[in-house]
């Protein structure tokens, strides 16, 4: 396919076009991804997550500059939420990153979450393949503003950076399950605001109680403050970038990269099974109208949902 060649050659329009089709779930796009897949796996993927307004886009913007200074090609996927009422979305992450608009070594794409609940958009994994295949060395994935349980980013990244800000609640918040567990790096942003030392201590306590022997890496806690002093802010993000790079090195040296890649592959396989096996089964039931009588049977308690599912599966297996 010509578009595959164009993507591999780094053609911006080809890449943005294919991402559009991934988002719109064009059935044809699967063929493109199949051909692209062998050319992926070269990019390092860094996930950035945190509450709305925590500073993810500003952080991403600065991180882009650091990677560009190193001569690396950078791709960015930035997700913002879709309205549950109208299906529309405001994609505003670019506002903070527009100074890279004309840098041909940077490709930034905003994605709307379109109903996905894990903090990303369904299109993210395939869009990562596209950016990877076009030759990006580093791909930064910015989630929607997250709360406690949007942890899909862990399945897409080599390194997860969690941005926190002071003032988000009492000490129980830091020991809650979910997003606090997935960070490879904690960044306390706006650390010049009241409450940051308390948050720092809470995080320290949290980390003291955890066992990192298996993970091979104890997440560092970095402070980031005073964006008005732009030189210092930029330098500080450089230090955080060093930590991100260090984390990746640890993954490589300790043989942990493969484990992450396998986890990623597992999640992707499950998604694909859903699309390739389950979705057509459901579609067929709907198209043939069989679904109606099945729903009636369930409502009337003529059959239980497990037995019905087993029956349907048995029919398909033959």
């Amino acid at each position, binding site marked *: 396919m010509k578009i595959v060649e164009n993507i591999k050659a780094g053609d911006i*329009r080809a890449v943005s076009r294919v991402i559009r089709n991934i988002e*719109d779930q064009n059935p044809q796009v699967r063929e493109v991804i199949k051909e692209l897949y062998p050319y992926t796996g070269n990019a390092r993927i860094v996930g950035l997550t945190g509450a709305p307004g925590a500073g993810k886009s500003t952080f991403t913007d600065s991180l882009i500059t650091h990677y560009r200074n190193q001569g690396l090609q950078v791709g960015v996927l930035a997700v913002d939420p879709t*309205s549950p009422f109208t299906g*529309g979305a405001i994609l505003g992450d670019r506002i903070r990153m527009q100074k890279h*608009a004309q840098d041909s070594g940077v490709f930034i794409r905003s994605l709307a979450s379109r109903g996905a609940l894990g903090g990303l958009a369904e299109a993210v994994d395939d869009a990562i393949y596209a950016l990877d295949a076009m030759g990006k060395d580093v791909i930064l994935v910015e989630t929607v503003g997250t709360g406690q349980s949007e942890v899909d980013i862990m399945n897409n990244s080599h390194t997860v950076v969690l941005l926190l800000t002071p003032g988000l609640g009492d000490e129980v918040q830091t020991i809650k399950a979910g997003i606090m567990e997935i960070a490879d790096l904690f960044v306390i942003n706006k650390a010049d605001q009241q409450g940051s030392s308390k948050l720092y201590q809470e995080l320290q306590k949290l980390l003291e109680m955890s066992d990192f022997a298996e993970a091979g890496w104890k997440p560092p806690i970095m402070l980031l403050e005073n964006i008005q002093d732009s030189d210092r802010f930029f330098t500080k993000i450089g230090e955080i970038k060093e930590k991100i790079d260090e984390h990746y090195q640890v993954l490589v040296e300790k043989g942990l990269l493969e484990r992450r890649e396998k986890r990623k592959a597992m999640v992707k396989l499950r998604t694909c099974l859903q699309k390739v096996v389950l979705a057509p089964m459901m579609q067929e039931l709907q198209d043939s109208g069989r679904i109606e009588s099945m729903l009636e049977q369930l409502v009337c308690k003529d059959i239980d949902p497990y037995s019905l599912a087993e029956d349907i599966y048995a029919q398909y297996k033959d």
Partner: protein
Amino acid sequence: MSENKLRIMVAKPGLDGHDRGARVLARAFRDAGYEVVYTGCHQTPEDIVSAAIQEDVDCIGLSCLSGAHKILFPRVIEMLKENNAEDITVIGGGIIPEQDFDKLYKAGVQEVFTPGTPLEDIVSWIDNHVTPRDQELS
């Protein structure tokens, strides 16, 4: 399963820091069900075109209150052509005197909206004139 969503970019070219209007529009477009890329103030035509291509938008809405629309709007369209992206519809709005409309239309601006235009009129114009791009892959 597949669904073509309209993607639109709201952009403010030039030295103009007044983006209340642009944000109101972005909000109205969101409520119309579009995916709206907003890039903020002080954008050069180069910034706008480069972002529009990366974002694969169907339409760009340019807002300008500074009086520089006669230079900036045509420049955006020129640059879209240079990048083989003239299929992106360009509309404009802001403080634009009526005697400038023709020049903008000639340059390729599809429609001009001035202050006081009801939001519904703008949305319905877009619904009638812009369709989400065909899904062609080859």
